[in-house]
Structures are given as structure tokens and as C-alpha cells.
């Protein structure tokens, strides 16, 4: 069930000057939250911001009633969310959207870049719960842009690429040696910049592997009411906030 609920800022974990994890605490918590779900956050006290901002749910703790978001400050709203005072009220509409479908058997590859890594903490845990052998492949510009690898390592193997070679293999995620030679995954999950996801989708197609991608979009309502957030698919325009954000890349025609 979708909720509209006030939370309080519990604290921040600063990853670097632009990236942070924001933890909110509520008096209660909806726990039917699945990997890929997001929240629409009302950004408090920021002049010039009119609409809520869609942000993936990083994780949540049903005992403490906390919910976490991994946010990259790229504009007015994502910057303001990074400088709230402890205890300040933040209103959420959540959980929204569909989710990644965890496989039951076989091996999974998760490819994330930028703020696209947020859904994968939860997805990794879900796959682990299914006893799936999971490989995370995380890309960044430099080693200072690669986050949460320790957390991912709790659910599987972690591979890294950086454009400058400062961590892991040098290059883009698509250049990683995991894609060279024998390639024996049964499912790929990806989230990040569009060009990256499209490249991963074509690798999946070439290898005849199922691939799910989580899309970003300009959203107004986040609940399927306005039809602002569409993406073209082989079956016509689909609403990203309710029919997605997770799509099978075949449906996207990628």
C-alpha cells in the first residue's frame, strides 16, 4: 500500500562532497518495499522547488522504522536534501513503482553506475536470500566515485571499473573483462546512465540473457496519475512510475 507519511532526518553518511546517504526515521514504516521501489520526497525549505523528487529506496529497517536513500547532489533538490538538520521533517509518498524480479536459480550480474547503484543493496539481499550467486559490477570515473562496495560484497562478488584506472579495471563497465570470453550469467540487472544501460542491454541480447533496467524520467506525481513520465516500448508508451521504473530491456526495444 502507498503511504504519505512524515519522517524525521536521522542522519547522514557522507560519501564524498556530492554523494550522501540520508536516513529518515518514522513513527511507523510500511515494509512491503521491494528492490527497485522508490519514494517521492517533498524537499523541505527549498525555494524554487515545486514538485517532489523521485529517489530509489536504498534500504530500510523495520525495527527502527528507518528508511535510507543514496543521493547524488546534481541540482536544487538533491543539494537541499543533503543539508537538512537532524530532526527536520521530510514527507514521503512511498513505496512507488514496480521492482526487479529476483531469479530463483542460476547466476546474476548486477551492473550499476552513478546514482544507479541505489536499488542494488536490496536486490543483492533478495538474490542472496534465493541463494543466487551474484556478481556486482560497479563503474565510476575515479575511485572516489565508487561507493557501497563493502555493502555489495555482503551479497556477492564485487568488480569495479574506473575511467582513470584508480580502482579496479580501467575503462567503462562495458569494457570489463567479465564480458570477455566465456559469459555464463542467467540474468543481468542494470541501473545508471542511459548509454551504459543500453550497452549492457545489447550485451545481454547478444548473449541471449534476460536483462532488466531501471529507468529515470521526469516525474510529476510518481503514482500514475499524470502520465508525464513515459518511455517508448515495443508496446507503445509505458508509464515509468507505475509500469516501471524497472523494464525488461526487450520491452524497451534496446
Amino acid at each position, binding site marked *: *500500500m*502507498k*503511504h*504519505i507519511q512524515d519522517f524525521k532526518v536521522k542522519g547522514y553518511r557522507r560519501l564524498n562532497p556530492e554523494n550522501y546517504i540520508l536516513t529518515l526515521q518514522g513513527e511507523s514504516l510500511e515494509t512491503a518495499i521491494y528492490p527497485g521501489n522508490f519514494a517521492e520526497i*517533498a524537499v523541505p525549505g527549498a525555494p*524554487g*522547488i*515545486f*514538485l*517532489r523528487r523521485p529517489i530509489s529506496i536504498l534500504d530500510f529497517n523495520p525495527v527502527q522504522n528507518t528508511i535510507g536513500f543514496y543521493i547524488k547532489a546534481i541540482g536544487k533538490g538533491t543539494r537541499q536534501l543533503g543539508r537538512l538538520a537532524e530532526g527536520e521533517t521530510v514527507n514521503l*509518498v512511498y513505496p512507488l513503482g514496480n521492482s526487479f524480479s529476483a531469479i530463483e536459480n542460476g547466476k546474476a550480474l548486477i551492473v550499476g553506475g552513478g546514482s544507479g547503484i541505489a536499488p542494488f543493496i536490496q536486490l543483492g539481499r533478495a538474490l542472496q536470500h534465493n541463494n543466487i550467486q551474484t556478481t556486482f559490477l560497479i563503474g565510476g570515473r575515479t575511485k572516489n566515485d565508487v561507493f557501497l562496495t563493502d555493502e555489495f560484497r555482503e551479497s556477492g562478488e564485487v568488480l569495479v571499473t574506473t575511467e582513470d584506472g584508480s580502482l579496479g579495471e580501467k575503462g567503462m563497465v562495458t569494457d570489463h573483462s567479465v564480458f570477455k570470453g566465456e559469459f555464463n550469467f542467467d540474468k543481468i540487472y542494470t541501473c545508471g546512465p542511459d548509454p551504459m544501460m543500453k550497452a549492457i542491454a545489447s550485451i545481454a541480447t547478444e548473449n541471449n540473457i534476460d536483462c532488466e533496467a531501471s529507468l529515470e*524520467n*521526469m*516525474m*510529476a*506525481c*510518481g*503514482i*500514475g*496519475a*499524470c*502520465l*508525464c*513520465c*513515459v*518511455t*517508448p516500448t515495443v508496446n*507503445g*508508451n509505458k508509464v515509468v512510475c*507505475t509500469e516501471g521504473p524497472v523494464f525488461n530491456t526487450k520491452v524497451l526495444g534496446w
Partner: protein
Amino acid sequence: MVDLKVQMGPLQLKNPVCTASGTFGFGSEFEDFFDLNRLGGIFVKGLTLKHREGNDYPRMAETASGMLNAVGLQNKGVDYFINSIYPEIRHYNTEIIPNVNGSTVEDYIAVTEKLNEVEGINAIELNISCPNVKEGGMAFGVSCPSAIAVTEAVRKAYDKTLIVKLSPNVTDITEIAKGVEGAGADAVSLVNTFLGMAIDAQSRKPLLSTITGGLSGPAIKPIALRMVWQVYQAVKIPISGMGGIMNATDAIEFMLAGATSIQVGTANFIDPQVSVKIIEGIEDYCENNGFNKASNLVGAIQA
């Protein structure tokens, strides 16, 4: 006890607060947030004769105290609405009011004729003001003769309450309002969105695939309020007022300016529970200010 009932021509609403077409889906999207039976009415998403894919992405841009949309009437067609959607929502104890669109007068008539047969639907909103479609839409609403022509044609095809939704993108909205009143409209609703545009200075590209789109939200409220006030003085039929209503105070201002009922649009995106809060706020206001009927607020501005 405040009497919240208002009369939109032949149609009675249990209270003045409705949700605006295109901003409230078909209602069910909001079921988790509040009891939809409390609403005065739900103006559902714009319908056309045939399935429409709507415009390409991107369709939305945020602006100062507002937003631009270029949805372009994406919908599965009126038959799908009647056969698959309406049966799911008809149990709500509130007026479900379809928003009727077309590229030609014949289109409008065809959609209307189908809706005329649907038991339980007591009113339609004729949208002659959509700025986001290439053909029809706003073109009908910005010229007086064509507004009259389409209203007359639809009036012939429709037996129940006919509400005509006006475009604010005109020099003189009272002229169009008088025209559609004469053509048989039972009520008018205003305003639809303002034609606007946004550019990304960095990429030097428009932010909408269609370049221009419809501006809504508090940014437009002063203009919308002025138009309601002007139309109130020009016509005898009731007005459903909207444009940037975010709270009960805004809604009351529209009623004081002359709106018999109001519609909540963009505000639904920011607070999905806002319409119930507005109903409660209007009731409180009436109580605190000695109005025993909400309808006594209509046009009660001391100008």
C-alpha cells in the same frame, strides 16, 4: 452544520471540491491516500475516440511555482474507458465526469454519444482547451465561432449536464464563455493550462519534446482567478474554477470570485490528500465566518 452541496446546473455535487482532469488519473491511483467518496466529483483523464499514444518524452518540466506538461491526451479511447475502466470506478459515491476531446467536431460528437448512453455518468466536461495536441484541442477554444459550433453539436448529442472547459489563452475569455452559454452549456470550467515553454540553456534545447506545453500550478493562480471573476460577471451559468489551487484558502478565493465549484489539479502531485483537506478547510471557513451554506461564498467578494 454547514451545507456543502452546490449545484452545477442540473448536476448536484455533495461539495464544491473536485479533482481536475489529467491530474487524478481515474481516481483509483489515489485510493490508498483517502476515501474518494468524500469528493464532490472526479474529472477523469481526457478521453478521445481512438486510443492515443500521447506525445514523446520528455513531457514535463518544472517551472517557478508551476510545471509544464505535454502529455497530449494519452488514453486508450472512450470504448476502453466505458468497458474496462468505468466499471471499476463506478462504485464510488461521487460524480465521475469524463473529459471529452477530439480533433474534429465529429470526433467530439462520437465520444459524447457513447458517454450519453452510460448509466451513472451524469455530466461530461467538453475540453476545447488542450494546448498539447496538434489538431483540435485548444484551436476550438480560442475562437468564439468554433467554440460555439462544437458546443452546439455536443449539446445536441448529450442529454445530461454539459460543462465546457475554456482555454485561458485568449484575449477575452468572457466572449467565449458567453458564446458557449448561448450554445447550451450548463456550466463552464476554467482555466485549462497556459501555453508555455522551457529551455535548457546548457544544451540549448527545449525541455519538452513538443517545445511548448501547458503551464499549471500556483504560478497561474492570479490570472485564473481574474478570469473566473470576469466570467462570473458575464454569464449566468455556474463556474467550476481552477488554476493553482493548493489549499482551502485558494479554493475559497475562487469561490469568492465566482466559482460554484472548484477543481484541484497539480496540487494532487504534491499532496495526494490535498482535496480532502480542502473540503475540511472550506467547511471550517464557513463555520467560522457565518456561512451556513458553501454556496453562499460564490461571488461573495466585496469589490
